[in-house]
Structures are given as C-alpha cells and as structure tokens.
C-alpha cells in the first residue's frame, strides 16, 4: 500500500488548529476517497485490530484518564455518549416527606436528595434502596446543617406505616408500609460487606433552625441520564484529541526564549546547542490550545498546532457509584448490545 502525499496525509490524520479556525476537522470516511491515487481508505477489521490500543494514563478511585488510539471519532464519541447518557445508576426518585418544618421547600429538598450520589449501588431495576432521614434541631440549640451522611440506609425497607383510612386491619399482622421486601437487603451478598451510603458525607442538604425538623424516607431506583441528570454515573466523561505541536523551522536564541515564555503550560524546552539555543517541543500533551504560541506576526509560520484525529485522550470522572474503569467496560457492553 502506497503512501499519501504529505499534505493529504496531514489532512487525513490531523486537525490543523490555525490561528483563525481549526481546519480538516472531519474524518474522511469514504473508502474511495483516495482511490484516484490508488490508495484504499476503507476501514478494515485487521487494520483496526492491529492499530487499536488503549493505554491507561491515570487511574484513581474516582477518575481515570486513558488514551484510545487508532479509532474513529464517531466510535470514541459513542463511548462518551453512552457513558454520559445510557449507563444506569441508582438515584433517589421518590421522597415521602413525613415532616418538614425547615425553610427549604419539600420539592426543592427532594430535588437536592435526588442529586446525592450513592455509593455501592448495584443498578437493579428489581430493587429499591430505601433511605431514612430524620434530623431535628432542638429549641434553644444553634442552627444545624443537614449533610448527606444523615441519610441512613434502611435494608429492611420502609418504616413508615401506611395510613389506612379504614381501620380494619388487625393488630397482630405487621403494619403495612410502603415497601414489600421479601428479605433484608443486608443479606444480599454484595451488600454484606459494603453497606449502602451516600458517596460523600458532606453534601449539604438543608439547614435547620431551632425547632425545625425534617423526617422523610427516600427511595432510590434505577434509571439513566436520559431521563434525569441525577442518574448519571459520571460527573462528566469527555475526550480530547492528542495535541501535536510542530516547529516548522528551527527557533533559536531569543525567539526560542520568547516561545518558551509565551506558553502558559510550559510546553517548550530550550536545548543548548553549544553555539546557540534551540526550542524543542517537550510536553505537547499538555497543550490546552490557548494559541499563544501562534499569536503575533509570523509565529504561525514557525509553529503549527495539530490534533491527531485517531488518538483520543479520554477522561472519565465517576460520581462514585462504580469505579471509572468498570464504567467504561459497561459502556462497551452497551455499545455491543446496541449493535447486535
């Protein structure tokens, strides 16, 4: 297989970030795009499997950064979209408010509770996670702040007794509540070791003045981001294309110093050539595309900023329900399912 001429190869594989606007941003999909030059542009499985690589750069409990190389923007974007919108998660959907004398309105309180991320949830449409929140600020005591750690998991389901208007139920049977759990959730193997709690204990839910009280039960159910942002397992997930900084000519001496000082993220280094100094690109990955290095007269002739079209630096920030790497594999699974 022949090679494309360099300018076409640049168009095909790089986004050129010029001073005024980025050009060649689209990927060239058509298999016969370069047919006249005898070059096949079709996507081939073998070529893909040879070239495709994933390199994890950083992996923490809550976030990860990895490089996905040799893939089309459309596919990378699919992963991003699935991560954002389609991964299921548990979030508080229904709130039964028994008492709320605080200044925060019931529906605002419920909305805030919904956005509290829950740790260790195993998304399961058959299950409901029940939380209880009962805080009281005694008269005469100072104001208190209700934080998310006040949410207590009720493995045995609701404790609120259903109010029945016709008082015919006999006293012997268990009082009717809002849930019917066949067994305690604590006995489910996944939760034996890890009880369900909010991921962060210090999220402010409400503030109570003396004499105010909140008593409620919250029911978390499974859902996806498409319905509401609270069912999002990621805070955000995005990618950027790998930056590539090319020095079009040798930049020496004072110009090199100028270039080095121009860059706010310290992209360039200066190497000592003995008789003079020359600028080199040391950390292209750090480029934020502030375009300072191509600002000013003639600099666009010396430095070119590119983005590699098939190299994606992916970042996933988890909200805590699942570790980020699991989230990504889940996303892959969902993509597989949709293709099937």
């Amino acid at each position: 297989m022949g090679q494309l001429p360099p300018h076409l190869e640049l168009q095909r594989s790089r986004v050129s970030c010029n001073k005024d606007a980025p050009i060649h941003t689209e990927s060239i999909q058509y298999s016969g795009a370069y047919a006249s030059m005898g070059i096949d542009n079709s996507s081939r499985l073998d070529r893909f499997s040879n070239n495709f690589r994933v390199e994890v750069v950083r992996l923490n409990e809550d976030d990860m950064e990895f490089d996905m190389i040799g893939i089309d923007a459309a596919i990378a974007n699919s992963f991003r979209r699935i991560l954002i919108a389609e991964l299921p998660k548990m979030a508080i959907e229904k709130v039964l408010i028994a008492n709320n004398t605080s200044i925060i309105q019931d529906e605002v309180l419920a909305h805030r509770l919904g956005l509290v991320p829950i740790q260790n949830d195993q998304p399961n449409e058959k299950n409901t996670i029940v939380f209880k929140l009962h805080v009281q600020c005694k008269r005469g005591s100072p104001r208190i702040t209700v934080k998310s750690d006040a949410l207590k998991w009720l493995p045995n389901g609701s404790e609120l007794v259903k109010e029945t208007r016709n008082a015919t139920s006999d006293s012997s049977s268990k009082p009717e509540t809002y849930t019917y759990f066949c067994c305690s959730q604590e006995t489910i193997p996944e939760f034996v070791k890890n009880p369900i709690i909010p991921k962060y204990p210090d999220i402010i839910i409400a503030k109570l003045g003396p004499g105010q009280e909140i008593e409620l039960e919250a029911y978390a159910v499974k859902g996806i981001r498409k319905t509401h942002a609270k069912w999002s397992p990621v805070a955000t997930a995005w990618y950027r294309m790998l930056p590539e900084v090319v020095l079009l000519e040798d930049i020496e001496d004072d110009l090199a110093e100028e270039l080095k000082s121009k860059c706010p993220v310290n992209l360039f280094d200066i190497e000592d050539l003995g008789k003079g100094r020359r600028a080199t690109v040391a950390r292209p990955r750090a480029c934020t595309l502030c375009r300072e290095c191509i600002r000013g007269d003639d600099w666009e002739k010396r430095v070119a900023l590119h983005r590699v079209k098939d190299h994606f630096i992916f970042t996933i920030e988890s909200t805590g329900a699942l570790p980020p790497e699991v989230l990504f594999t889940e996303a892959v699974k969902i993509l597989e399912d949709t293709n099937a």
Partner: protein
Amino acid sequence: MGLKQEDILNKNSKNLNVSEIPVDKQKLAAPIKSAVDKFQLLPEFLKVRGLVKQHLDSFNYFVNTGIKKIVRANDRIVSDIDPSIYLRFKDVRIGEPSMTVDGITEKINPHACRLSEMTYAAPILVNIEYIQGSHGQKTRLEKNDLVIGRMPIMLRSCCCVLQGKDEAELARLGECPLDPGGYFVIKGTEKVILIQEQLSKNRIIIDADKKGNINASVTSSSEATKSKTVIQMEKEKIYLLLNQFVKKIPIMVVMKAMGMESDQEVVQMLGRDPRFSALLLPSIEECAGIGIYTKEQALAYLDTKAKRPLYASSASDQDGRAFCILRDVFIANVPVRCNNFRPKCLYVAVMLRRMMEAILNKDAMDDKDYVGNKRLELSGQLISLLFEDLFKTTLAQVKKSIDSVLSKTSRSSALDPSQFLRRMEFITTGLERTLSTGNFDIQRFRMHRKGMTQVLARLSFIGTLGFMTKVSPQFEKSRKVSGPRALQPSQWGMLCPCDTPEGEACGLVKNLALMTHVTTDEDEGPLVSLCYCLGVEDLELLSGEELHTPNSFLVMLNGLILGKHRRPQHFANALRKLRRAGKVGEFVSVFVNEKQRCVYIASDGGRVCRPLVIADKGISRIKEHHMKELLDGVRTFDDFLSDGLIEYLDVNEENNALIALYEGEATPETTHIEIEPFTILGVIAGLIPYPHHNQSPRNTYQCAMGKQAMGNIAYNQLCRMDTLLYLLVYPQRPLLTTRTIELVGYDKLGAGQNATVAVISYSGYDIEDAIVMNKSSLDRGFGRCIVMKNRSSNVIQKYENGATDRILRPQRTGPGSEKMLILDDDGIASPGEIIRPNDILLNKEVPIHTRGTRVSSDSLPDSAYKPVRQSYKGPEGESCVMDRVSLSTDRNGNLSIKFLIRHTRRPELGDKFSSRHGQKGVCGIIIQQEDFPFSERGICPDLIMNPHGFPSRMTVGKMIELLGGKAGVSCGRFHYGSAFGEPSGHADKVETISETLVKHGFCYNGKDFIYSGITGCPLQAYIFMGPIYYQKLKHMVLDKMHARGNGPRVMLTRQPTEGRARKGGLRVGEMERDCLIAYGASMLIFERLMVSSDPFEVQVCRKCGLLGYYSHKLKTGICSSCKNGDDVSTMQLPYACKLLIQELQSMNIVPRLKLAEAN
C-alpha cells in the same frame, strides 16, 4: 466692579501658576495628584443617607418641622358665638406607631401590619389649651397628648420602629435589613408616593408660546395662596394675564394701579438702555390711549375687569376688588407689607427686563426642561399638603360643633371643646384613603391628581429599589413632544441617563442617580439677614434706576429680590465659604448668573443636588490620609462635609463649577472633582457590567428587564403573604459584579444565575434570539423557580343577628370526601399538602339567615347553614403545594384565613430569559447534554446563544462580561465591570482579563476549541464560551398558554368569552376577516363568525320580515305580528344579530329581513 474683582483673582492665580511651574512638575509626580481612591465615600454616603434618603428626609422633615408649622399657623379655634371660648394648640408631635383596639394601645411593627392588613400608623398627639364651660364659670384647662388622628408612618423614617435597628433586631421584627424603606403600609399593602417632577415655584420663567409671543411667567406659591402670573408681549404691547381678570390687562395700567404713576420711573426701573424703553413705548402709549394716568383711574379700570369672586368676603369690598387681587394674587410670592407695593413693582420690572432681554436675544429664553428649573415633590411635601387640608377641615368642623352646642339655649353639661376634637376621624380616614387610592383631591389647594401612590412592586429586590427612585412626570404622557423626553445635559449625575421606560412614558418617567439628594425646605430668615450682612444693598434704599446699574448684580433668594451687590463673585465666594464651614445649611446653593447679572441663592425644597469633592486650583482637598481615616472608622461622611472637603451642588450651582472627572484631568481652573463617575447611573443601570461598552438603548432595555427578573426579594420573603411572588430556587451572585451591585446588596439578593454560554448557532431552534438549553443543567436546578400565589382571603364573618360562619371537620368517607383530602381536622387545608384542581381549601359554611331575629350561633341546626367551600381552581394537570396558611384578625375583628399556594417550575420551552445587556430570548429547545458541544476540558455549556444576537445589538459589554466571568472562575476572584471604571480600577480592563485567561491556559480572546457532541469531531471554528449572568424573567409559558375547543360563552351575546382567565376563544378579528374575504374563503368565514361562535335558529316571517317564534304546541313557527305561521321560515343567524334586531325594535326601529330564497 464685580467682574474686575474676578479678573484680579484670575490674574493672581495665573501669576501663581507661572511662578509655580517647577513645583507643578513635582506635584504631577507626587502621590496627591494620583487618584485617591474616593470610592469608599460611596458606601459611607449610602450608610449615612440610605438608598432612598430622599423619601426619608422629606418625611422626616414633615414630621419634625412641617407638621409643627402647619399647626402653628392654624393654632386657634375661636367660637363665633362666644369669642371667649377657644381652643389653642400648643404643640404637635407624632407618637410611636401603635394601634388602639378597645381602649388598649398596642405597639405595632410594619411586618405585622403587612400580614394582618393593618395600616402602619402612629397617633398624632397634640397639647391643647381650652376654655371649658359657659355662661359664668369658665375654666382654662390644658390637656396633653390628645390624639387627633393617626398618621401613616414611612418605614425607616425617624418615627418608625425600624429606625436605627441593627440586623439582628430587624430580623426579630420580621424585616429585611436590605429593604430600603421609604414606603407606607396602608391596609396591608405597601404604598409608595412617587416622586413628582414639577416646574420651579416662585421663579421667573421666560418662554415663547405657540404663537411666538414671549411670556414671562411665575407660578407663585406662598403659605396663603397659589397663583400663576403671566406677562406677555403681544403685538409689541405688554399685557398681564391673570386668572382673576377677565381679559389681559395692559402692564402699564397694573404699574399705575400699584402706585407707579410716573412712566419715567418705570422706564428707569428697566434700565437706561434705550432699547428697553423703545420696547416699552407701545405699552405706555396704550395706557395713555385709554386715559389712565393715576392710581385711582387704574384701580377703577381694573375693578371693571376683575372677575366676580365666588364667595364675597367683607374685606375685599372694603379695599376694592382689584386692589385685593393685586395684593394677594398677583405674584403672590412677593409679600406686600403695609400696602407697600414697591417690591412688587420692582419684581415686575425685573420680569419685564428679563422678557425684553429675551426679545432682543433669543438665547436668554429659559429652558423648561432644564433640571435646574425643576423641583421634585416628595412624599413629605405631599403628605404635608394633605394634612394641612385635613387639619383645617377638622378645625372648621370642630368650630361648627362648638357653635351648634353654644347656640342651643339649654345645655345639660359643660362644654368641652376637646371632646369634639377627639371624635373627629377626618385626619385618620383622609390620610388612609388618599394614600391607598393615590387620588390627591385637595379642594383647598386646587390639587386634583390621580395615581400619586402606587403599590410597591415586589417582583424582585432591584425592582423594589427602582420603584423608590422613580420620578413621575408633570405632563400627561400622551403629549407628543420631544423636548421633555430628550436627555438633558443638566441631568448629569442627578438623573439616570439609562433608566427610563420604553413606549409612551419614554423620557418622561425618570430615575434618580445613585448619589442624588433632594433638598428639603430650609428657613429663609437667617439667610436673608446673612445676605444683608455680607453687603447686599436693600432695594428699599435704592432708586429704581439703580436696579440695573451695570456694576452690580441682583441678589435673589428663592425667587425673591433681596437687593443688589456690587461684588457678586466675592459675595458668592463668601457664602460658599460659610457653607463649607457649616455655618449655612449644606444644601443652600449660590449661583452667579453672569448673563442675567444675578446671584441666585436657593434654600427651597425639591432641588436635586449631589456631593462633589472640592478642589483648590485643581487639587483635590481629599488626601490619602482622609481616606485612611475613613477606612479606620474615625471619619464619617458627615465629617467630610463639615470639614469642607465635600459639598453638595445643585444643578444651578454646577454652572459655576468646573468639574473634573478624575484628579488627573484637573486643571488649575477646576473647582470640583467627581467622587466616582459611575454614580451618574441609577440603581438599576448600575447592575449592568461594562454599560459604557454597550449601545445605549440596550442599557435602557436592561433597566426595564432587570425589574422583571426573578430571584430573591428580601430576607423575609418566606414570611410574606404577597398575592404573587416569584422566587428563584438557586439564585447566585453575579460573577462579574459592579460596585453598585455591592452597594445596593444585589450580591446578597441576586436575581439570576451564572450560566456557561457558548455563542454558536445550533439546531436551528435558536433563531430570533431563542436560546438552546442543556437538559442536564435544568435537571440540576438551573432556572428553577417558585411561584407563590395568595388565594384571596376568606373571612369568617359575624352577622348582625348573632350568627357566624363556621368551619367544619372534613368528611373522610362518602361522596365528596375525595375533594377534602388535603383538609386538616380543623377544616382548613394543611401546609405541605399537594393540591389538585378542585380540591377544597376551606370547609366553610355560611348561615342561611343573616338578618332578623337574634340567634345564638351554637344553637343553630346544621340545616340553617349552606356550604360555601373555597376550592382551588388551577389549570388541569398542574399540581401545586399548600405553602402556608395564615390566620389573622382583620380590621373588623373577624378571623381571616389566607392560603399561600406554591408551584415549583423548571424552565420549559418558551420561558423568557435575559442577560444583563438587554438581550432577551425565549428558550427555543432543550437538548440532552450528550448532544451539546464540549470543550477540551470537558466543559459543556448550560445554554447556547445565537451569534446573530451580537452584530446588530452591539452589546460589547456582554462579550467583556463573558471574558471577565471566565477569567473570574479560573482565577477565583470576582471581577468588576463598573461603568466607566477602567481608569479608577473599578472595572477590569480587557487586556488584564486576557492575561489572566492566558495564564490559565485559555485563549486570550475567550474562544475555545470545541468538539461537537453529535459527530464527535472538532467544530470548524473556535467558540466564544464562558459564564454570563442570566436572569429568568417572570413571563412564563405556563401562565400564558391557552387554547380552547368548546367553552364558556358570554350570557348576553352567547359568543365565546374573551381572555385566558375566562377560558376565552381566540378571536378572528377584523383584519383576519379582511384577509379571508380577500382570499374568498367564504365558508371559512361563515364557520368562524357564525357556526363556531353564536349560531341561533330564528323564525322569520317572509311577509313582514320580523322575527317570530317557534311554537312547541303547534310544532311550527309563528309570526307574532302577522298572528299566523303561514309564511314563516327557519334560518340561522348569529345570536348577536338577533339581539341587535331586538334592541333596535325596542328603540322603535324596525329592521326587516327580506329573504331571497326561503322555504
């Protein structure tokens, strides 16, 4: 002489400068000349004066001084029948706000009044002295603290309980510390007396009328009378126009009637210039032509021209009617003592001279729109007028009652005049009624004005503030004139150049600028004597000719001629020096008018003025150490005033000053330096960041919209029971603030949110200013708002027969119980319950019989009541929540129940949003976050704005706000964008913002590299993206959307009802009809105008053409005039048409229908 003096001064200063040139260079480098940050003066100023200081000062003046003056002027009631019986007021004062119910006096606070629909008022207490008894035994008695009425109290005034309270105490009283006060609480509603703009009283104003005749007019206003005097030049002759005379009077006749029998003296008074005598000559000739040479002849002539007075009094007959008019009505502001008319003659001479100057030189004409010729009437003055009227009426009534008692021959008890006073309710009810309706109808002062008070708009905090600074115009709004609407250069610093409504009131309704102060009246007496001490020559001692001698200036005090002075500049400087030393009131203005050769001294109320830093030869008196002392708290704003560092200048005196914007721009001639340039804007325009970069109408639009933005209203917003309340769930303080925002507290009670905005064209649903919103942002609470509505209060009434309304326990079972689910056991809806349409809020029953025989409410059977349930009628499908239920006692002592219903809304398609730059737009589409573009840092915008919004609007300020906001979030410091703030450091410069952006890895121009959320590829442009403060406006689709299929109809015409509130139909109007006719869609017209509107079947008699009726017995139509059914046809007609025919018939007009084809 005066001019020469000045010249010498100038020369001196020039000489000094020449000698100081080497020193001057050093001075330029010295820190003094570099701008001292005078900004701290502003918060200090506002701390001393408050945001609505004009209202408060005015009311305080009335309460402390004005009311006493009124009572002192009318302090005696003397009986006509027995003059030895009298009542005298010794003192008057306003007590503490309180309320007396059943003899028990209770202190009240404003918030309690708001909630229980009371009037926040304080008793007017008087000390009186009176004669009790009659015939032989008369005793002089004294009574202290007698209540003669209740005066509504302005919040935060000196009588208010809130005065001087700190934040904690205010909170305890249920009051918001940021609330400015300055309004009244009348029957539970907050009422503001708008500032009224008026032409100056007692000043000579020269202008031309429609015919081009030159007028000199004076609107006189003294304690006794109010009148308007016009002297007009018509066909080269000069006339006097006065209401009391039937026709215009030759001016020379008037002069002669006032004792100026010699024509020469009049000419001398005008001055030596032959041009003036030439102008007067035709008038002298005319006077001689009608044969009037002496005072007696003139008065006799005037007597024939005088209008017959409405009520003849004995005094006027004695002296002659014309004489009285000349004395009391003609230029009433010039007092006539001991029938000495000379001051009046001189005044007329000055008027004539000014007029002739205007004829000779058109520039001498006065500008009516000039702010210096205007006075602002504030609540204190208006209430004082009202009180004076009511007080006099009360006195008259009391006198009448005393006389009627005295005229009775047999009396059982001794007469006590104070009894009558106590019984009078005029003052209380009169004040309350006038303030609550806003109709000032004061016969005594011929004042009939409507809409003087308005309900304080509590839509947003800033709207409330804006209401307090609003100045309403003197003219009616319909006048199509451009002059008063145009921006006047003299408005600078006094009235906001941006804040005016659009439409008919544009330019007429104005708003005060941030530092404006409106003066109150000041005593003239000491000023007069001071002026004479400073060398003013009394006119009494001068001959007429000396009036206009070229080497002297006239001295006028509040429109009155005091005398003349030979060294006006010296005199003015002396007065100013005294003022700066605090020996004369700080608001007294001295203005040397070189053109008119006059020194005007003003101490009257209603002038607008503003504080300025005094500069000596261009060097500011405020030095670094003064500001340091201010910051340390050892120096207050008042100290600056009393130390002569700062002074108040009114619009006229500004003409004698050369004011530099900044220290650096000051030249040796500079006399004053502005405190801060952004204070030329008002409160509302002050919210706009970088307004000086915007096209000016955009700032005006924002001023209108800022008042509609939702946010926080006050700290006590959740304790209020307003009829309509819009709140934002998560309001934020703007990332890009201004100094004004911090001064007024908008950062604490914001009305908007900082949204990350990307300026792209996206999805096609963003044309015509629509915005695209991110669904996830909305999920997280962006733009979420709470609407609270107060359902009209329900009163549990007691009836005259002893029966009362009652509230019943709700039914828990059976039919109807499903509507009572939200009721508590006491029959009142409980807070926190979710309400659905038709739910019952109050299970109330009303007795059937409310009159007649007395019954006990306990013994009434259930059958004697009928249910009057209050149910919720909201739109179907919308679920609201009962927020609060308030039980209070109303004025009649009945239980009143109010429900506050809450609805939380998230933004939806069609809701209106706006940035702070007059760029409003509706939400066009809501899009999922994954479809939204994202930046290299993973930032996803909250909303997308179409770039087409920029080129034609030229809101560069918005772009800078975006840049500044972006820099602000990256470096963690709030950026500033105060108006004209770049030189003084109150606005960040674009260059520094760009540097900050670059430092944090952004492009200097704020444009980011963005990926498309749909394709995943980068966009082919860098996108301008960053945070902009967005306001949610009160116009929401939910309140407006309306459609109807079938629905209610109007009873009379049987046509569909009108309006959304009545579920009305959508009208095919005249123009729509015209379109359909032109197009020829006849069946559609038929369907719209008849079938879908009000079809009606009528019986028409083909013979007589009248309408008949359908007889159900005979199953046929019958014509009632032909008495048979032979020729009756059935046809369809709009019911309105049938109605018209019948109405015409009732007026003896017979419309006959001629049917072309019928069966």
